[in-house]
């Protein structure tokens, strides 16, 4: 099982804070494509150039591998401080 989290504007656009996925293997980029196939309305938001990703609370690039049990998060560029 893979837990996928969405934050901030992305969470609002997808109207989803968390989504759980069974039986996935591939990269972060593959996961984005897979979710966009499952929910076509997500594609434009999830595939935006500036969307960032973390695996198990560490920032990663698109080719990082997702493993079973991982927590994967997608979010826009950060704006704290």
């Amino acid at each position, binding site marked *: 099982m893979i837990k996928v*989290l969405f*934050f*901030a*504007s992305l969470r*609002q656009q997808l109207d989803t804070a968390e989504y759980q996925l069974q039986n996935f293997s591939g990269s972060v980029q593959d996961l984005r494509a897979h979710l966009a196939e499952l929910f076509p309305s997500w594609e434009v938001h999830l595939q935006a150039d*500036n969307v960032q990703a*973390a695996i198990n*609370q*560490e*920032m990663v690039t698109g080719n990082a591998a997702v493993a079973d049990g991982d927590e994967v*998060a997608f*979010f*826009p*560029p*950060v*704006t*704290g*401080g």
Partner: protein
Amino acid sequence: MDTIEVRTAAISVTDEFQALREGNRSDGATAMFVGSVRDFNAGAGVDGLTLEHYPGMTEKSLQRIVDSARARWDLGRVRVIHRVGAMQVEDSIVFVGVTCAHRQAAFSACQYLMDRLKTEAPFWKLESRETGKAWVAARDSDRLELQKWS
């Protein structure tokens, strides 16, 4: 001695300064930065904002940034306090304070902590503007500021 807090409670500069200084006889220098909610972001009047974060990752990210600052400079006490939730104009959003034996290192470390916090720590601002609510856009200038540390 690091203190890193992500919290809804208001920030007290009085308390933060006291925690940096009490019993601290060896560090002559204290550099501090406070980021406040201002009312003219991007031209539209701002009434307040809501800070969202990624519980768990945010704290880890801040700790990594502080560790990295300690690897660069010989610092005394470091305090990073960031509010989340709803805030009003003039409220303090973030406090970063550093003590050190040397003035230049205190300034550099404080600025470095803010520069990295701004570009790495998972916080997102939702502003309440006259025209409705809007997510604040990240600024290229914040990414460019990181170059001075590389």
